[in-house]
């Protein structure tokens, strides 16, 4: 590992930019003129819509233990807070009072709010509020069509699309058409297959590619499938267009239950748990 990856990706950006400047002069001919050019393979764009985690991930055992230790250490190394100082002073005052009362009884007690009273009040206040559960209804019903499931991890959108006469679980995909960029194809794939899902495609560059070579007997062109990542914003999947018969929101681990092994291999190239 010569460079940290962030450097290498930066270097890559710089290289790309300088290359872009060089090539811009050569490729003044616009996309329109490329309509005549026949590509060596059929181009597809697929969009990987990711719903990012809504809640923090569950702590592992060591994380749990270490966070406990850290809070213990922090408490031990800290100074007494205003509240604690007040509590101590009140305790001392109460003791003094008791000693005095033993000697001469008959002091009139005045009602005051002590630090302990305040603590009870705060406890009651926090108990009156119940936060939403980390486990949602969709989790309990095992409803894989809901974006509300598995809030602690990333979810990816898979659709059942008809590809070459057979139905497969894939990321929403579409064929590239003349006059559009691959990113536009990816956006079109999402809007045409899934309907109302709003997502932001991240960047103009595809994040991975999958190549399919046809059998030699067939006189078909090879296929190149470019993947784009997108950030799920809102909306529900609507398969009314008929391009997809079904859909699911799944985690990375659940891909293997749906996708073909080879397709799953391609997904593993660019979908990672950090």
């Amino acid at each position, binding site marked *: *590992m010569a460079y940290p*990856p*962030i450097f*290498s*990706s930066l270097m*890559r950006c710089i290289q*790309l*930019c300088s*290359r*872009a400047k060089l*090539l*811009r002069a*050569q*490729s003044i*001919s*616009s*996309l329109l003129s*490329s309509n005549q*050019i026949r*590509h*060596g*393979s059929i*181009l597809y764009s697929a969009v990987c819509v990711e719903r*990012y*985690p*809504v*809640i*923090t*991930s569950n702590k592992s055992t*060591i994380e749990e*233990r*270490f966070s406990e*230790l850290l809070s213990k250490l922090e408490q*031990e190394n*800290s*100074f*007494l807070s205003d509240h604690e*100082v007040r509590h101590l002073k009140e305790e001392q005052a109460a003791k003094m009072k008791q000693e005095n009362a033993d000697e001469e009884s008959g002091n009139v007690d005045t009602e005051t709010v002590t630090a302990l009273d305040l603590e009870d009040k705060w406890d009651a206040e926090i108990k009156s509020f119940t*936060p*939403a*559960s*980390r486990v949602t209804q969709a989790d309990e019903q095992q409803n894989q069509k809901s974006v509300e499931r598995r809030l602690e991890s990333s979810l990816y959108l898979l659709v059942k699309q008809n590809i070459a006469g057979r139905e497969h679980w894939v990321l929403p995909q579409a064929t590239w058409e003349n006059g559009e*960029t*691959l*990113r536009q194809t990816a956006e079109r794939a999402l809007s045409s297959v899934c309907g109302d899902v709003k997502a932001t495609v*991240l*960047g*103009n*560059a*595809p*994040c*991975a*590619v999958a190549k399919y070579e046809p059998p030699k007997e067939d006189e078909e062109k090879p296929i*190149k499938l*470019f*993947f784009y990542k997108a950030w799920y914003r809102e909306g529900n999947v609507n398969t009314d267009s008929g391009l997809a018969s079904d859909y699911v929101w799944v985690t990375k681990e659940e891909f293997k239950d749906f996708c073909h092994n080879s397709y799953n291999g391609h997904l593993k*190239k*660019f979908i*990672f748990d*950090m």
Partner: protein
Amino acid sequence: MAAILSNLAKLSLSQPTSTVFQSCRIHSQVNPLLIRATQQLLAEPMKKKKRIDPSVLAAKEAKKIKKIEKEIKKLTRFGRILKPVAEIELPNKQFRLAKERQRETPVLSFEESEERALLQKQWGRYRTKMWVHQYQVYDKLVAAQAEALEELKAESPELYQEAIKIDYNMIAMNFEGPKLTPPIRDYVPPDGDYVDTSRKY
């Protein structure tokens, strides 16, 4: 002699002892006494205004402006000059308070301190593993994208050019979360909503 006296009386102020005589005179005499004492002002005569040469005044003004300009220049050249950290001293009161607020730390048993040390070592190994994993993930992501771009370039230089363009929409991006618990739907906060009313310019 009497005539002279009466003349003198005409000139002088009214005598406090001769009110009867005076009241008689008011009616009898054609010309009443018109002498009146003016109000006392209790003031000094006005001082003569000192005249300053306008050139001197202008010079004074210029000097002031120059001084301010000099300071501005100094500030723009060096920025705010901060006090060196070594010179910053805490007031004595803080030290006294810190002593007062000392917490009594429990004495750790041998097992306890050993366990803590072990856990810290474990944690170090765990984080290192994660760090290595992250680096590998970054490398794989970069490699996957590079492969995709190479394939695209081989297919169509025009599409490649479109793909390597900078996406300026990504620059102003904000993220929120993840949080400990999911948001409650249709939650009405008991203290009301926070509305930012500060003026926008």
